[in-house]
């Protein structure tokens, strides 16, 4: 059977698009980014409780008193979880993606309903959009659009589109044929038949489709978070990567509150916009005798006035607020080298990455730079730096772990040297597993571990090394099966096994906080099958040295010892999520000379 190299074509196509049509992608990025910024400015700009009140008024208008109260409580809860900005960022992303999806999906669905050929052509396309794993197009999306909101929005649109199209088509097709015929029999034009008969009658189904679009859009935000879309998705993603179950649950609850709100509101919207829905609502209201006040809903005009008044108050507070806190400065006396230059750092939510990134963020701000940080998955991170969206990142494991990314992007990147090393990769067992101290000892002990080695993401370089080299070198292939999962699943498995005192063997690397938390034993590697240890490099975009000459020097000289890194990581673990920057500052306060060493002010 000859190898059908479909994948190679796709890769070529992506390369070609990237080099030849970048202006289109830039235009799309500008438009989508602008829409998102606009919506986010409105939603995220107001005082949280006032915004919650506005959402509650909308709920009052659409559903009545009880849902309005629940809405207010729900959004207030989000605020008290300190997730307000993230929730509004997520809501903005959903709103932008949903609006674009609906604008495309409804006319497409109408077209498909009126033309069987279009319908037949669209069906497989929609299948692909709905079932193709999001990562498959998320990464090319990052290549085209850079990290940030745009690939997240695009991925969301792709994923959320199919039900919008399908339900519109279904809605129009299921309008009673006799009614359409009746319209024609009275001489109605095809266009009027659509607008006067088909669309009004299909509206409940179309609204159900729109509801689905919004829910699917919301379900994509976590995946969007991996490409730098920010919001709750980023929080959830970061939390699960670092095994912070509590934080993940908090962010998850915020997602659920948003989801329930959006679901109930779009569901009820049908009662307001479609004539059939209004009829049904009027009937229900007439039949509800008891608890009449609970069913009261204000008229559209009243609700509108409520929203406008609250919005004006919110806007007014905002103006007053920003006037008061005008000259706020972060600089701690040191020389203002950055002069407000903007700089973007990206990081993979690995511990040393978080630690070094927030350390640098704090240092840079003290030196007068404006430093932004974006959390990304490794693929989007490299492609983001290569595109120049990210100025530098401090977590390149070379030459092994990130070899694939380095090979692909090295000519678009500048290596600023290693700041920590050597690292090591290893298989690790809990110390209570007696008699196994070296990889060679694993042979013949497969039963003990159920023949399993708990791995991490199959995309990770160390997984390839493990399968291709380490197992062979020690004759373990066949006896052990490497289970690929994710870093967080691996750590969870390790955690669970330790609790039950069961034998387990996992892939791990140093530095890693797990060595501080658990009593673990690195298996010796006398045959050096894992290779020499790696170095953690700082990698910047191509012309970084020209844009930031001084900073380039600092980064090239950047070094941390194992003890320094460990203490920094511990400090950050202690501070908890969301306080990384403060934790980094605490650490700097405890190590005052390090900063001057890392970023010496000239002269």
């Amino acid at each position, binding site marked *: 059977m000859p190898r059908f190299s479909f994948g190679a074509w796709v890769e070529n196509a992506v390369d070609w698009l990237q080099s030849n049509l970048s202006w289109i992608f830039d235009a799309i990025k500008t438009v989508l980014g602008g829409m998102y910024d606009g919506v986010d400015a409105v939603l995220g700009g107001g005082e949280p409780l006032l915004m919650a009140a506005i959402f509650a008024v909308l709920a009052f208008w659409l559903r009545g008193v009880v849902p309005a109260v629940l809405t207010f409580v729900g959004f207030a809860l989000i605020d008290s979880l300190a997730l307000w900005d993230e929730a509004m960022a997520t809501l903005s992303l959903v709103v932008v993606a949903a609006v674009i999806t609906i604008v495309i999906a409804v006319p497409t669905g109408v077209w498909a309903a009126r033309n069987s050929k279009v319908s037949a052509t669209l069906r497989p396309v929609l299948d692909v959009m709905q079932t193709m794993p999001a990562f498959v197009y998320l990464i090319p999306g990052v290549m085209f659009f850079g990290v940030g909101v745009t690939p997240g929005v695009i991925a969301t649109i792709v994923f959320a589109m199919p039900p919008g199209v399908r339900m519109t088509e279904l809605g129009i097709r299921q309008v*009673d044929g*006799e*009614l359409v*015929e*009746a*319209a*024609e*029999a*009275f*001489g*109605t*034009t095809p266009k*009027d038949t659509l607008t006067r*008969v088909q669309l*009004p*009658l299909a509206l409940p189904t179309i609204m159900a489709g729109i509801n689905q679009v919004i829910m699917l859009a919301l379900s994509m935000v976590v995946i969007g978070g991996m490409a730098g879309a920010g919001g709750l998705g980023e929080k959830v993603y970061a939390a699960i990567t670092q095994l912070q179950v509590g934080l993940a649950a908090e962010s998850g609850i915020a997602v659920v509150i948003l989801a329930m709100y959006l679901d109930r509101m779009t569901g009820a919207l049908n009662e307001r916009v*479609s*004539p*059939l829905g209004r*009829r049904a609502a009027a009937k229900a209201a007439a039949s509800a005798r008891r608890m009449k006040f609970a069913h009261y809903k204000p008229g559209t005009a009243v609700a509108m006035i409520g929203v406008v008044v609250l919005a004006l108050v919110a806007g007014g507070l905002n103006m007053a607020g920003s006037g008061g806190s005008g000259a706020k400065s972060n600089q701690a006396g040191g020389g203002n080298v950055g002069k407000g230059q903007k700089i973007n750092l990206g990081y993979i939510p690995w511990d040393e990455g978080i630690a070094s990134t927030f350390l640098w963020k704090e240092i840079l701000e003290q030196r007068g730079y404006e430093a932004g940080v974006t959390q990304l998955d490794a693929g989007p991170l490299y492609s983001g730096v290569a595109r120049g969206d990210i100025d530098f990142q401090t977590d390149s494991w070379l030459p092994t772990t990130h070899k694939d990314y380095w090979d692909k992007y090295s000519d678009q990147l500048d290596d600023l040297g290693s700041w920590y090393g050597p690292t090591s990769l290893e298989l690790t067992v809990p110390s209570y597993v007696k008699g196994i101290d070296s990889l060679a000892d694993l042979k013949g002990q497969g039963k003990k571990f159920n023949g399993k080695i708990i791995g991490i993401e199959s995309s990770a370089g160390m997984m390839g090394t493990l399968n291709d080299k380490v197992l062979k070198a020690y004759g373990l292939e066949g006896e052990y099966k490497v289970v690929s999962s994710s870093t967080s699943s691996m750590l969870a498995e390790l955690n669970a096994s330790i609790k039950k005192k069961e034998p387990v063997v996992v892939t791990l690397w140093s530095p890693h906080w797990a060595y501080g938390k658990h009593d673990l034993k690195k298996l010796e590697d006398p045959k050096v099958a894992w290779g020499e240890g790696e170095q953690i490099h700082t990698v910047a975009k191509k012309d970084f040295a020209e844009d930031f000459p001084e900073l380039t020097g600092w980064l090239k000289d950047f070094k941390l010892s194992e003890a320094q890194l460990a203490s920094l990581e511990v400090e950050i673990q202690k501070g908890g999520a969301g306080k990384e920057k403060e934790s980094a500052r605490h650490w700097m306060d405890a190590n005052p000379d390090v900063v001057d060493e890392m970023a010496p002010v000239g002269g």
Partner: protein
Amino acid sequence: MSRLQAEHLYKVFGRRPDQAVRKLQDGTQRDELRADGTTAAVIDASFTVEPGQIFVVMGLSGSGKSTLLRMLNGLLEPTAGRVLFDGQDLTALSARELRGVRSSKISMVFQHFALFPHRSVLENAGYGLEVQGVPRAEREQRAAEALQLTGLAGWEKSWPDELSGGMQQRVGLARALATDADLLLMDESFSALDPLIRRDMQDQLLELQKRLKKTIVFITHDLNEAMRLGDRIAVMRDGEIVQQGTAEDILVRPSDDYVASFIQDVDRSRVLTAGSIMEAPEEGRSDKDLLAEAPATVSAETPIAELFTPCSTSGVAVAVTDAGGGVIGVVPRTRLLAVLGEEPQVEDVLPAQGEAEAVKASA
């Protein structure tokens, strides 16, 4: 001039319909075409409807009657043949012109009412006017008048789903009447209703027809309904019109076994009239004698149901008289019983009446 004329209408669904029409014209049977995947729904249908007439097309489901009806207002384009409406060839019109004709001159009443559920009763009744672009005030007034005509005054603000089936169909009828169209196409309009309500609606249609004198083409599968409503009836079978004529023609002289079996269950006593079953009086007896003897005197149009009582009380024949009082025939008890008992026979031998002759000649 006839209001509506159908000339050799064909409708073929499937591949290469034109070729199929040629084959049919050359005498190929419908079943042979079906083997090729083409369906001949209507085959060579011709008929004429005079102004003010109710023309009923009757047939079982699948006989092509609904297809035929939809060719009359251009909802379906005939594969071959012409439809002349007031002398205008509808098949030659553009889609736009055809929509114009449909909105103002031909309206339609549907089997399942086809009321728009998102519009009130008044808005439904005024739909045709809305399409024509009639201003709102006039539209609502005319729609309200049409509703009054069908007995729905006071229901204007209601919604279709709040009405019973019969009332819904009155809205459908009002919608068709509101545009003042000359031609009403009614597609099994009363079939979905309960028998009692169906009868009510039939009576009301006949009542309205007396006042409005519309031209109506009415489709039904119910022979009793056809007999009640139809000035003229066409019986369809497998896409072809097998017989046309008045109710009596069809009942008394079915053109083939199919029609004969069809009319078996009809209540003959309500359709047949004294005139159609009477015998010539005995030779040599004067009108005066006959009238004196007879237990009752009836006109030729009297349904024979009304002859039972007089015949049961007397052995002498009932006399049938014309408008001037002259005896044109008699119905003896034996004849009455024989007519009720007999199975309809193809081309039953009965004294042919004048009109029947004419129908046969034209058929």
